[in-house]
């Protein structure tokens, strides 16, 4: 485990991670891996590098590949740079039935970027996601920690305006 690696995690992130580590028995540090990945992802402007994942592995005494497995399994972890705001558009069944297709079209038009891409000014990334458990408010999107529900083109314009 190289110390140099661990240094990639800044002091504030370490404090955060340690809080999570403290919640689990001492010999099960690895239980904090998801939280740790989220914390270093935030520290790095919304995406993970291999070096950061390695840093988490050594911080939590895990095999690197184990961290890669977790980080590639969950769609909330990004492996490429993302824009300032990541717009997660649900296109799963309920949202689809309620018109997520139009939401996608509208976003792509408005932002001039295809699903999965990032706008040139690096402000927005569009990402297609599976059901976020908010079917009653379908169609919906998630930006940061907020859910925006019962959407239509107008509402989307307003949301984007606010985030400008």
């Amino acid at each position, binding site marked *: 485990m190289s110390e140099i690696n661990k240094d990639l995690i800044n002091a504030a992130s370490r404090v955060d991670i340690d809080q999570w580590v403290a919640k689990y028995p001492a010999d099960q540090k690895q239980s904090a891996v998801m939280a740790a990945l989220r914390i270093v992802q935030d520290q790095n402007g919304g995406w993970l590098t291999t070096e950061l994942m390695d840093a988490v592995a050594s911080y939590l005494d895990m*095999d*690197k590949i184990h961290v*890669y497995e977790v980080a*590639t*399994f*969950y769609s909330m972890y990004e492996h490429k740079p993302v824009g300032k705001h990541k717009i997660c558009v649900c296109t799963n069944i309920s949202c689809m039935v309620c018109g997520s297709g139009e939401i996608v079209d509208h976003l792509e038009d408005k932002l001039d970027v295809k699903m999965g891409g990032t706008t040139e000014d690096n402000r927005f990334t569009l990402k297609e996601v599976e059901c976020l458990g908010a079917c009653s408010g379908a169609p919906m999107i998630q930006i940061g920690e907020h859910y925006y529900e019962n959407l239509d083109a107008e509402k989307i314009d307003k949301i984007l305006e606010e985030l400008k």
Partner: protein
Amino acid sequence: MVTIEINGQQVEAEQGQMLIEAADKAGIAIPRFCYHKNLSISASCRMCLVEVEKAPKPMPACATPVADGMVVNTKSTYALAAQKSVMEFLLINHPLDCPVCDQGGECDLQEFSIGYGSDKSQYAEIKRVVKDKDIGPLIATELTRCIHCTRCVRFGQEIAGMRELGATGRGDWMEIGTYIEKSIDSELSGNIIDLCPVGALTSKVSRFTYRVWELANNDSISAHDCIGSNCNAQTKNGEIKRVISRQNDSINDAWISDRDRYSFEGLQSDDRLTKPMIKKDGAWTEASWDDALQFAVNSLKDIKDKSQIGTVCSPSVTTEEMYLLQKVMRGIGSNNIDHRLRQSDFRGQDQDPLFPGLGMSVADVAAQQAAILIGSNVRKEQPIMGHQLRQASLKGAKISFVNPVSFDANFNVAHEFTIAPSQMFKELKVLAKVALENSSAGAPEGLAALVSSVKVTDEHKQCIAELSDADNSMVILGTIVQAMPNYSAMRILASYIADASNSTLSYLTPGANTSGAYLSGLLPNRTQVAQGEFANTDGLDTQAMFAQKLKAYILYGIEVERDLDNPVQASQALDNADFVVSLSAFVTDAIKAGSDVILPISTITESSGTLINVAGIWQSFNAVSKAKGLSKPGWKVLRVMGNLFNIDGFDYQSSEDVINELKSALALENSQSETSRATNQLVWDCPENISAQTTDIQRIAELSIYNVDAVTRRATALQKTQDAQVDVAKINSALAKKLKLEDAQAVTAKQADNTAQVTISIDNKITDNCVYLSAGNVAASSLGGGFDTIELIPA
């Protein structure tokens, strides 16, 4: 015990057993991909679904515990329907490229799809394709074929103790791989090829050289370490194409080391010797067997003083060859016979046990609760022993090391005492002192005085307490300590520590057949005289034979510059000799330079014979591959030599005759395949108190994993692995600073007048003031003794 019913048949099963185990035992086949007897259960492939009465859905047999009165059907329409749908799912993304797949013909997927698959696919969407990864020189990947059983991943985690492969991504996008570009470096890695139920992981070395149905299966024994792992050496037209493991629960479970799997490549090396050769007036000519043997025998007859003949034999040849070799030499009146190529301290040899062994079976090691290994890189020297120790450790055993290098372990090490070779005796004194303090028996003569001045730490106390508190524990002498200059003194202390802590004293020995060498009398100091009885003889040991520059030498299966502790000393002795016979499977310039006649003998797989492993198990095997050219099995060559020397009793018809003669000399029945494990404990004989306070830099030599024998050294794929990159001198950063050397700097290593060019590698696992320069590699061949002082001079 519970009784269950499977397909109408009453089956007895143990409480807690899984259905699939009970069915396997009763011989009822249930299809499976992810389940493997020696791995944890993941129940992820669902191929083993069966019908269980009263259960609301089909149950996976690998993860359903038996219960008394359970009624199971593995073949009902209901069970079959479940199995068939699983099969259909598994085939969705599979490329169905069986005609170009190495696994074709032995593929579980292929086999089950014949039983359970449909001849039509309902799937019309795009199949996914996975990019192949380069995971090193040994294993080829074709990951589009992967069915995600995760056997390879579990193997890494549970057996190899290195989680190198993983399943990244999710659902449709899940992939097996290393995520980053990386080679798989475990010394047991090749087992994932045997484990992979499809052709996703195959052997890079054997790839596209056979179709499975062309291969003949040959039960064989691995000949590259003292474990004697069971393997199946598969041949096509008499040539080994592939080696796979063969289950033996008392030795190697389902695994073999990469060395045992891939060494066969060395058999096809260009420098195989195919005809006898004679040197006449400085020029080499090919000769007939008759001429060459007659020449060798006559030249040896010309040496009137037979104590001027020295015989040195590899510890990795068959017991039959060893027995006959010593019989010939003793027959002509020479006791200078040895197989201990790297030992340098022979002072304790008259106390050697019948054979230095484990004192238990290989599998028993996994049941130990504590062990201390002295001078051993067990994981790389005997990978299967490393596996057994790791299994013990996973069950909570406390395993400690006393070593000159902090070798990488793949389990939790309880205590690690990393000290210079010159200080190891002192370290053992400390441990002996603790053992003495804890012991209720009186101190053996001289011990109290010997250990009076050493300081004990808590860590030493804990280490000994763990040994004494355990029901089963061992003190293991590894091959590194056996090569050290004051081995005999250290061995006595180790024996005392074992005694006082109620542990077994065990040896891990060099080569594949050190046990065989001892039992067949391939030793200068002892010979069999009657059934099971020995007498002392006064022959010279390996070191003395070369130090004293004899008139003639016989080298059996040896490459002097790679196989001996002090290659330079040995080469000089050969240069000086009147006559040297080499019996060898290979011919090199070095062998030519040092010999007068070279006789081509078969390698182990080309001859029938017997290896005796470190647990005293005699394992005989038949010839597997065709002999090269005119080469002959060693026992036949020695039989002729015995006859040409007119020695009585060389009328053997087969290698069995030879081994049976040895068995009867050892008071064993012909059918017996085990030598009872006599105790290894030594009679106390207080060692001299050596206090080595030297400022000189000492060399540490370990015979590195892929340099152990002539065949392995020629296995090209193994030589490309990470573990084979050993032509470096490793020092720690403190010494580097002191000597003003940098990583990757080229230097001249110098021992007395001998030099070698090496590169520095800075590695803080090496103890202070020492240079780790492994033995058996090219650089070491122009150097002296493995633990002599050494200088590093910037080039």
